[in-house]
């Protein structure tokens, strides 16, 4: 607090530049302008892909970049017909990987976070620290040894090779511990125990419902993480029927560099691939609370 007091004393002297500074509440055009520039920078590529996907092959390379055309539906049909509908197969795979993986991950994170928050046992600190250190392990570097280990057990080129490595997330367990500690009062657990409830019953029927909003946040993080993952499936999968969207679109672009005709398909595919996540973002906005230092401050 002493540093704050010092700052307070220093402030009036510094503000002598303008008498009206600090009136507050008035609109600052500079601040608003900067924010809108940032927003424009972030929206520009999305707007471009939206417009570009309405163009056919010839228009893509000839017409004004931001002049929309009317071929969106044709492009979607062409994409659907491409290689027996493999694009929608990729979409389906991605949903399975991200949805299934995130659900399993939430279960494990909630269970271990709850155990770490509500039980005392030997080696608790060591286990928590070890799990957390996983955050620092370059995640993608794991993918190559995982590939060789999975290959030994014949698991590459399966759904499991994508889902299994992404269930344990240090960040999810960390959040699970914070949410358990904050949302599940010890009194309730004690009361349930005196009534003769078993540990797992308490976890399932009491802790999970109380932690639910926090679990949605963990689910979202993990869902986006798996949805966006490229390297793990890129390494693990050789069969294009199992690809997620990221790897599928990459191979499409790769072919497109020799067959520019595929560019319109790549662009339409890119647009369709970001719609589900953007929809998820806009509908579940209030769950996007990212407090990385919550534990450090309390």
């Amino acid at each position, binding site marked *: 607090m002493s*540093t704050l007091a010092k700052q307070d004393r220093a*402030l*009036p002297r510094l*503000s002598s530049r303008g008498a009206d*500074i*600090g009136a*507050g509440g008035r*609109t*600052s055009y500079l*601040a*608003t302008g*900067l924010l*809108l520039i*940032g*927003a424009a920078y*972030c*929206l520009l*590529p*999305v707007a*471009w892909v939206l417009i*570009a996907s309405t163009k056919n092959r010839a228009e893509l*390379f000839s017409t*004004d*970049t*931001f002049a929309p055309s009317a071929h969106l539906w044709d492009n979607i049909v062409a994409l659907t017909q491409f290689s027996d509908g493999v694009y929608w197969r990729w979409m389906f795979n991605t949903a399975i990987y991200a949805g299934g993986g995130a659900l399993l991950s939430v279960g*494990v994170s909630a*269970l*271990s976070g*709850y155990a*770490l928050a509500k039980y005392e046992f030997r080696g608790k600190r060591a*286990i928590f620290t070890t799990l957390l250190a996983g955050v*620092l*392990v*370059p995640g993608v*570097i*794991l993918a*190559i*040894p*995982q*590939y060789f280990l999975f290959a030994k057990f014949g698991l590459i080129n399966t759904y499991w090779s994508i889902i*299994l*490595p992404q*269930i*344990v997330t240090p960040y999810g367990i960390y959040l699970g511990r914070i949410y358990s500690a904050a949302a599940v009062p010890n009194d309730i657990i004690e009361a349930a125990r005196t009534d003769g409830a078993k540990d797992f019953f308490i*976890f399932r029927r009491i802790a999970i419902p109380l932690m639910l909003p926090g679990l949605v946040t963990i689910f979202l993080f993990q869902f*986006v993480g798996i949805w*966006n993952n490229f*390297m793990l499936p890129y*390494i693990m999968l050789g069969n294009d029927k199992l690809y997620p*969207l990221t790897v599928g679109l990459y191979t499409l672009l790769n072919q497109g*560099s020799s067959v520019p005709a595929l560019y319109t398909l790549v662009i339409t595919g*890119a647009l369709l691939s970001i719609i589900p*996540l953007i929809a998820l*973002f806009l509908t579940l906005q209030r769950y996007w*609370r*990212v*407090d*990385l*230092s919550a534990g450090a*401050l309390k």
Partner: protein
Amino acid sequence: MLAPAIILFVLFLAAPIAYTVFLSFQKLEISGLGLGPGATKPVWAGFSNYVSALSDPSFLQSAIRILIYGAILVPSMLLLALLFALLLDSRRSRSRGFSRVAIFLPYAVPAVVASLIWGFLYLPSVSPFYDIAGQLGWKNPPALLAGELVIFAIANIALWGGIGFNMVVMYTALKSIPTELYEAARLDGASEVQIALRVKVPMIVPSIIMTAIFAMISTLQVFNEPTTLRPISNAISSTFTPLMTVYRDALTRNDIYSASAASVAIAVVTFALSFGFLRLIQRGAFSQES
């Protein structure tokens, strides 16, 4: 209750790490002509894989490239994220809700798709930038996907995808500051800018440190963006970043031993950087206290 987490952790985190370290100290010995099964067998190699992997000129070049890339990306991303977080938190800026969603939106776009979209935006035949440059009378704008500029092109993609997430982390931290802290400063006539720089920023230093560490870690691991851009840019080699070199060695050249040594080296550098950075910050914080 911890059993599932521990089992999965051991199987999919600890075991692969141990396996990589083990492989990094091995090499294949070829007996006879090296033909037929059993003609090659793995033997103890000591540090020879490390020596050869780390002295490989293309690996060194990729390491330097990644340092330049990080020096461009990390400061600009964190500063912009901080700027936008402070602007969102300022009561004098307008259209905050819209801007927050818009700036966070790229986080929903996978790096591969972002690279793909920006890749098209960099292509002269499709890009709006070249149209605009042409209309403004700029005859020969530089090719963004060629030569040295490609590093900036890739950094811009990561910047685009990363500002929003870091901004939300900092913004969440700003929201948890008690507002009474500003009131005193306001009564003393401090401007919003001064409050931002002298009250708000010091309060969210822990969040800034966390985002800085995560940004540095992901910089060392950059793989998706350059890999995606490779089909449309001649300036990106198969050893453009350290991880791309590891990938090539392990899966294209089937030299898992050298790839493992390089992986371990990257992991060690990552650890050293994050801990070193934390130590540096802590020392700074303590010296301020005394």
